[in-house]
């Protein structure tokens, strides 16, 4: 076996390994007779000065990005917008039941919607305040935004998958009650007033709650 082959094999192993590998680890995984030290030496030489370098730490070998490029890694790291489970669930209810009040969200979820969950969704621009329900207390109703549609690749709310698609997707079991229905988020709600301009939520009724 040629040194070049061993070099390639070590390169692949170190790259795909979950952590640094010792020479013994490499010997064990390579075909018999592989000259691991020599191959490591040429490999280290090959990567010298590149964006990725071969480093030896605590008697083990690993690839790592070059020290001088650290500025690339740290400054521009971007967190993906990962929705918490609670946020995901709340978003799903708002999407299907809109316009929906906070109390209604809670009644479906069976737990109190924490103020923070709705806040996150509002802040991400996935959810908006739509209007006020024409019921005592005139609670604020929530709905989804255009950004929501864009995020999920929907042309309009009418494109939200309904019960039939859920069944195809294997999400609906047969043990659901016969009257189980998924609401149509596109339906026009008659008992809702639009939010006027400057109709800011009232702090004590809308944020502190106590319906």
């Amino acid at each position, binding site marked *: 076996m040629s040194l070049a082959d061993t070099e390639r094999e070590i390169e692949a192993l170190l790259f795909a390994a979950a952590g640094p590998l010792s020479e013994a680890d490499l010997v064990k995984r390579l075909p018999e007779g592989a000259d691991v030290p020599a191959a490591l030496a040429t490999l280290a030489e090959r990567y010298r000065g590149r964006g990725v370098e071969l480093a030896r730490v605590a008697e083990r070998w690993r690839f790592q990005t070059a020290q001088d490029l650290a500025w690339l*890694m740290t400054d*521009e790291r971007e967190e993906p917008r990962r929705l918490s489970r609670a946020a*995901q669930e709340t978003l*799903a209810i708002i999407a299907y039941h809109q316009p929906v009040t906070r109390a209604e969200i809670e009644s479906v979820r*069976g737990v109190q919607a924490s103020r923070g969950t709705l806040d996150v969704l509002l802040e991400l621009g996935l959810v908006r305040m739509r209007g006020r329900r024409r019921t005592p207390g005139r609670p604020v109703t929530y709905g989804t935004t255009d950004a929501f549609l864009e995020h999920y690749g929907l042309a309009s709310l009418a494109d939200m998958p309904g019960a039939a698609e859920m069944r195809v997707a294997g*999400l*609906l079991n*047969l043990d659901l009650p016969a009257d189980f229905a998924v609401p149509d988020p596109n339906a026009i709600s008659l008992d809702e007033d639009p939010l006027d301009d400057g109709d800011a939520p009232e702090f004590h009724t809308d944020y502190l709650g106590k319906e």
Partner: protein
Amino acid sequence: MSEGFQPGLDFDAARTAADDGEALIVDVDGYEGPLHVLLALARSQKVDLLKLSVLKLAEQYLVFVQEARRRRFSLAADYLVMAAWLAYLKSRLLLPKPEQPKGEEAPAEEIAARLAFRLAKLDAMRTASEALNTRAILRRDVFTRGDPEAIRVIPSGRIEGDLYSLMSAYIGQRTKETSRRYTPPVVTTYPLEDARDRLRRMLPDLDRWTPLAGVAPFGPSDQGPSRASFLASTLSASLELVKDGAMEARQLEAFADVFLRATAGRST
């Protein structure tokens, strides 16, 4: 709803049954339905699917179904429907062409050509599926970087959570909602019988007017019947005793305290 019916037609189920030794074994070689059987038959003719003799194919299919039925293979309805349909097509192909085409009915040759086209398409899809599987598949043939600790750059613009996860999140909750049960705590009450027995035992000592609150027992506050239950049961029991003539009750005005005493001269 076809849901309850469809699984019976599923050949996976039949195969599982065969594996369990419960069913007659007919080598269906992964055939899932009529088109697949037709396709397998067509392939064995080793001809261009688009120039296939549908007539020959229909004959072979009918033989296949006959054979399978003879071996008591529980044939799915799909197979029989296709068999009937092919038999009809065969007869149309064999009969001399009518001078005037009947109504809207497409010529048999055209229907046969379409069937051949569908078979060619299905065949193409199977080949494509095999071609995809010979590609360098992630985590089978090629591997990306393995060390999760060292990952420091995360691609942006990736959508976290797709429509499917949104639907799952929704259904998960609605299902939870329908299966939610309300189990109120069982309220323990002070039994009327107990109140009656207790009052009877107390009668000898009740020779003067005593407020109801003083007659009703006190239970432990954290468990057992509530104070209200003690009061209510005691009142009910006392009224029964009044009716029996063993006891007297009086209330001077509405909402005032109720007073009880044993009837004078009667002590039991």
